[in-house]
């Protein structure tokens, strides 16, 4: 049983998806099956992380075909960490989903909705777990197609348009990835990531390989919403149903960042990416612009969901910045931020989901005075908001701290100063929400509202509590992130 864990990681969700679709007439049952599936997936992710905690790697030959002929699933510290993030978020979002989805999705489509959710989940897990370049492309499309359907189910008609834009840009991104993989195949005759890494050094000094690198980097950057390729993200996250926003904001871009890391570090290697092609000077300006510009745009948003979506683009900037520093510490800070940002942003979007549930919308005008009637929801928003800003004793602080250290170690004090300045911008946009909810009188035509139901509040607070727990006792995420960074770099580090 345990030797089949890598396959089960994907197969459980993939086989549950059609079953849930058949249960479309019974929304409650469909939800129950999805919940159990997500918890099982989370359990598998935990077991896999424990297996690779000592720095080893798990190999699994799909169908018994030995690589490089067959498709290999390979799990090391890096992707086990990403699997845990996906598993955790899906496991926490499902209890939240029942009431939220019942309100936002027509009853005759709830089963289909959960089926698409499971497909998106399986796709993301598949991207992370596989060690085959073409398989990454296929799973990318599985998760993307399901995400388009999920986003289009938003209540606002602009959700459909947002989904369409995401489809166009996402397809261009994955097709670029496909072309890049083709170039790699021409030169090496293999698709297995480990095999590619072994054969690339012979042919590395060719234009074909450089073109492959460019296509893959641009294609994946579109998927991870690197500034200025982020245009699909604010609308897609802003208009999607609450539960979809929570799940995608915490996982989809993170998985794309993992793919970038896998190609940059494992396949092409540090030497080629950072020394020969100077990735630092491509990524760092984009990362810095990507932190500053979307943060400023976020300040001027009137819809809390879109505000947080722009903040997500800025947070991707932080992760890319850590990578662009080209040091073990910077890489570790990025990998750590994958997790810390996932729980922080998921908690924030869940609090927003609670507000949507009671108020019907989350424009600043509509949430005015909401704190008085929904104190627990807003308290969760404040705590998670502090983590987003990076206040000490929260998870967000831990990553900012390491990022700052990495920037200073690289002698880049202007970058360090900019990091602090942008935290202040984050404080401004979070404050605008707090100001509206706590200090403004509710609008005259405000509906009489109560606190969000416990079914929504408890998952929200589970994640909110995690931002505190992993801010105070940061040992677990830090050691896992170190393990992940070592797996990517391929050599043990002295931290």
């Amino acid at each position, binding site marked *: 049983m345990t030797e089949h864990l890598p396959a089960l990681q994907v197969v459980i969700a993939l086989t549950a998806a059609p079953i849930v679709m058949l249960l479309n007439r019974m929304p409650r049952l469909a939800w129950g099956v999805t919940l159990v599936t997500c918890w099982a997936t989370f359990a598998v992710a935990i077991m896999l992380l424990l297996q690779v905690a000592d720095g080893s790697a798990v190999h699994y030959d799909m169908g018994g075909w030995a690589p490089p002929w067959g498709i290999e699933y390979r799990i090391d510290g890096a992707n086990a960490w990403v699997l845990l993030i996906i598993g955790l978020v899906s496991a926490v979002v499902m209890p939240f989903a029942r009431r939220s989805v019942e309100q936002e999705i027509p009853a005759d489509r709830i089963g289909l909705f959960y089926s698409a959710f499971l497909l998106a989940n399986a796709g993301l897990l598949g991207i992370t777990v596989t060690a085959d370049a073409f398989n990454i492309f296929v799973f990318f499309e599985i998760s993307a197609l399901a995400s388009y359907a999920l986003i289009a189910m938003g209540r606002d008609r*602009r959700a459909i348009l947002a989904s369409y834009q995401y489809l166009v840009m996402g397809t261009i991104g994955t097709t670029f990835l496909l072309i890049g993989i083709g170039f790699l195949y021409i030169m090496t005759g293999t698709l297995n990531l480990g095999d590619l890494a072994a054969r690339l050094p012979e042919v590395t000094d060719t234009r074909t390989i450089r073109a492959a690198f460019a296509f893959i980097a641009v294609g994946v950057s579109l998927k991870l919403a690197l500034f200025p390729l982020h245009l699909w993200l604010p609308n897609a996250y802003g208009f999607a149903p609450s539960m979809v926003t929570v799940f995608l904001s915490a996982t989809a871009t993170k998985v794309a960042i993992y793919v970038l890391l896998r190609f940059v570090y494992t396949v092409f290697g540090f030497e080629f990416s950072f020394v020969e092609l100077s990735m630092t000077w491509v990524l760092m300006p984009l990362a810095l612009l990507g932190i500053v510009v979307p943060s400023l745009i976020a300040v001027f948003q009137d819809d809390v969901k879109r505000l947080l979506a722009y903040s997500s683009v800025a947070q991707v900037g932080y992760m890319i910045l850590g990578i662009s520093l080209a040091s073990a510490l910077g890489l570790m800070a990025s990998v750590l931020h994958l997790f810390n940002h996932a729980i922080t942003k998921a908690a924030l979007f869940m609090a927003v989901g609670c507000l949507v549930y009671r108020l019907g919308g989350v424009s600043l005008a509509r949430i005015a005075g909401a704190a008085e009637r929904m104190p627990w929801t807003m308290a969760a928003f404040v705590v998670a908001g502090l983590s987003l800003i990076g206040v000490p004793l929260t998870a967000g602080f831990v990553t900012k701290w390491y990022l700052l250290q990495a920037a200073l170690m690289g002698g880049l004090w202007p970058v360090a100063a900019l990091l602090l300045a942008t935290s202040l911008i984050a404080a401004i946009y979070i404050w605008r929400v707090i100001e509206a909810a706590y200090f403004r009188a509710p609008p005259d035509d405000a509906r009489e509202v109560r606190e969000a139901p416990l079914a929504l509040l408890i998952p929200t607070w589970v994640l909110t509590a995690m931002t505190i727990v992993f801010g105070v006792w940061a040992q677990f995420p830090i050691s896992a992130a170190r393990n992940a960074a070592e797996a990517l770099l391929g050599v043990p580090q002295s931290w």
Partner: protein
Amino acid sequence: MIWLGLYNYWIVIVLMMIGFYIVIAQGNLVKKIVGLNIFQTSAFIFFISLAWKEGGTAPIALPGVTEYSNPLPHVLILTAIVVGVALTAMGLALVVRIHEAYGSIEEDDIHEQDEYQ
């Protein structure tokens, strides 16, 4: 003449640019999907071309034949074509829903309507 000999790849590049241009320049949502299709097709032709081998035949074991085209890219592209069909269906389904919601499939029209909202 080596440049002309690689004419498959030139066609790939031309198709890719045509598709890409349509996606960017066209305001009609259906035409954008068509552009996306052309763009993807260029990637398919690229894969098929790279599998070709001079003097090679179809990859079927026959007596006396030693040179084969590489079958793997063909298989990959079969998968990618399926993905492409799914994407086209998804894209067109979204266009239908957009038309129901806005009564138009011209980008300018739609954005104008949303601004007045």
